[in-house]
């Protein structure tokens, strides 16, 4: 598959004609770009003989990225002589589909995986080591977060794809008004700054609800930044109830009352975006989507002076606690299901997806919301031309941990995560529970899972 561009297009044309002759139908309508693009690519192909490869991903927070992927699916269909169909569903619903697919032994061929789901579903996934190693050879090593998430007994059970970084999006001018030309570097400084801001009616925004994105990406790193951890490095003993965790919880309790929008307990992953765009909060931890959407809708999203808001938005990494600066990012991968009848085709497709030119196109369209799974993508020229506030995301993935720290990130860690135990620990404290009691409650829950 190393044709030059011109040959490739000729080849494609020829393939297309033959393809049509053979199967007698037209492929998926090429996306036109923009929102209409996604929504227009709806004609179901009707191949008489083509093999269908069903690929399921979440609905991307950057709509244009999905448009690009659908376009790539069409192109891949032609290149591979099959019918690649991308289905995007709400991120919250993916696990229901995966579960019923695995249990019933039939469903999509490729599922997108988040965090350490490959650990959870490992017995139903196909070994992707050959693909992973090929891509490593081509593009360099993966980020450190991937091994604990999906390397099981030396085998890659899923193919790392990308990482959604998060950082604090904040209003530069407002922070400047309270004396912070640079974003606060520690949690205590952030507390100070935001107390002043809340007094001006511009609180900080953080969700403590049952969300899979914005809540854990704050609560886990906050715990780590104060020295807390879920288990010991062996992953057997629960060590949550430490001074570090208690300090973190006490901090959060004070921080919430003094500085945060108290509606945050009810927020899901989208509420902080909307609150920010409505000028209700001064800052919030999020992916790059707040900035990107503000820029793309600069006529609709404006600040109090009538100027486009995106000009006033900048990003900063999570502040540091006594134990340093920590992050939890949303790492994504693709897994091929064992029950699939098209495993080879699926693997070929994923290899195709990771070809430098294809992957790059998707990455560029994501505009910094995603970073590539391989560290080498940091050096891609796109980062030079990307907007200043987004540059921070380039190296974001370097210092991340995954839940289950300090032990390996096994299915038990997923259980803790999916029961929102860590997040609820903070939510309970914020709602009035004594930090001691909140931590003890969380520890009991963890013990029930790890040491039962």
């Amino acid at each position, binding site marked *: 598959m190393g044709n030059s561009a011109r040959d490739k297009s000729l080849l494609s044309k020829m393939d297309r004609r033959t393809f049509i002759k053979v199967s007698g139908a037209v492929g998926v309508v090429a996306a036109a770009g923009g929102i209409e693009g996604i929504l227009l690519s709806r004609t179901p192909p009707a191949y008489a003989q083509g093999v269908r490869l069903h690929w399921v991903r979440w609905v991307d927070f950057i709509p244009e990225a999905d448009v690009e992927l659908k376009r790539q699916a069409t192109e891949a269909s032609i290149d591979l002589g099959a019918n690649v169909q991308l289905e995007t569903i709400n991120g919250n619903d993916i696990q229901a589909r995966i579960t019923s697919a695995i*249990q019933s032994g039939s469903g999509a061929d490729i599922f997108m995986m988040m965090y350490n789901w490959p650990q959870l579903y490992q017995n139903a996934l196909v070994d992707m080591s050959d693909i992973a190693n090929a891509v490593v050879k081509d593009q360099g090593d993966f980020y450190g977060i991937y091994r604990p998430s999906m390397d099981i007994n030396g085998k890659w059970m899923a193919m790392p794809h990308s990482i959604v970084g998060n950082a604090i999006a904040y209003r530069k001018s407002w922070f400047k008004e309270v004396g912070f030309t640079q974003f606060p570097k520690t949690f205590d400084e952030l507390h100070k700054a935001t107390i002043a801001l809340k007094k001006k009616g511009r609180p900080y925004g953080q969700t403590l609800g049952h969300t899979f994105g914005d809540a854990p990406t704050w609560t886990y790193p906050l715990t780590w930044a104060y020295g807390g951890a879920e288990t010991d490095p062996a992953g057997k003993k629960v060590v949550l109830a430490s001074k570090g965790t208690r300090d973190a919880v006490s901090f959060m309790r004070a921080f919430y009352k003094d500085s945060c929008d108290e509606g945050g*307990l009810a927020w899901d992953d989208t*509420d902080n975006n*909307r609150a920010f765009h409505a000028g209700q909060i001064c800052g919030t931890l999020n992916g790059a989507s707040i900035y990107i959407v503000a820029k793309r809708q600069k006529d609709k999203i404006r600040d109090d002076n009538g100027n486009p808001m995106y000009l006033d938005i900048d990003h900063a990494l999570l502040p540091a606690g006594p134990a340093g600066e920590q992050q939890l990012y949303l790492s994504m991968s693709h897994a091929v299901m064992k029950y699939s009848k098209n495993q080879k085709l699926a693997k070929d497709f994923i290899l195709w997806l990771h070809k430098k030119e294809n992957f790059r196109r998707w990455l560029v369209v994501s505009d910094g919301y995603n970073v590539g799974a391989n560290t080498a993508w940091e050096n891609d020229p796109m980062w030079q031309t990307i907007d200043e506030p987004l540059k921070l995301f380039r190296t974001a993935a370097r210092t991340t941990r995954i839940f289950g720290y300090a032990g390996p990130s096994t299915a038990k860690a997923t259980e803790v995560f999916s029961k929102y135990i860590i997040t609820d620990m903070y*939510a309970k404290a914020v709602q009035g529970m004594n930090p001691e009691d909140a931590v003890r409650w969380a520890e009991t829950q963890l013990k029930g899972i790890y040491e039962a």
Partner: protein
Amino acid sequence: MDHEFADQVGSVAGVEAALPRPHVERPWSLMYLLDNERFLAVVLLAPALLLLGAFIAYPFVMGIWLSLSDTSVGNLGHFVGLQNFVRAWDDSIFRTAFKNTFIYTFWATLFKLALGMWLAVLLNRHFRANRIIRAVVLLPFIVPTVLSTFAWKWMFDPTFSVLNWLLFRVGIIADKLPFLSNGTWAMGCAIVVNIWRGMPFYAISFLAGLQTINPDLHEAASLDGANGWQRFWYLTWPLLKPLTVVVVVFSIIQTFSDFQLIYVLTGGGPANSTHLLATYAYQVGVAAGLLGQGAAISLFMFPVLFIVVWIQLRYVRRLEGV
């Protein structure tokens, strides 16, 4: 065979003219068989039993097996007895969800009953817009739950709530109400949405019942000096009891196992204060992949519902039987 059938049917149509035909004429005809009560019963019940058997009984049994095993996604389970049930009971989140389910069901049902009855009494009059109002009143019940709950979610949204706006403008509040961000409030809001959605069903059902009550009875009662409330309590209410039981039983079953509303409105938060058994079972079974435990949590609903239903059915039988 068809001949005979046509004959017999023909005889029904010409009932007055035909002479009675003894059944013994063609002993082994299909009609004879179908005349046999037992055979007919089997034939009539077969479709329902087959469908329910295939799509409920069998999965139900599998569900029970799941709950007695340590199955997780993609992994074969082994029999572990009642371990999942014990474990669930020890789990404080489970106990919270269990308690929440009762609170949710109790308050929602109570209000749906009271408000539904009141609305039915109001609708049980003749006025011009009757038909339109009855159809309009059904709307909350018809609109897909997911969509209406989203609308409510946005009405309660901390940043954009139209309810906050309204109350603020009218001067009742000075700062926004914590609709979904406070545990107790969130449960209250969920109950309100459930009432909003379910009340029309109660109202229309009671309306049907009210129309069977002979208006002369009401005349007689008011002539005897009973006022509106007394007439209702001593006359209407007792007559409606059988209907009430049926409606309440079905409603309790639906509300107790409610999933969609909470899932969309709060996801069980904040801090598990609105988790119900169904949403928690889903979270454990699907998000954490622990199918055995999820099944066990779901099954806790079953005996409770069974007892509730049994009590009410006995009550009905007492009313009927005596």
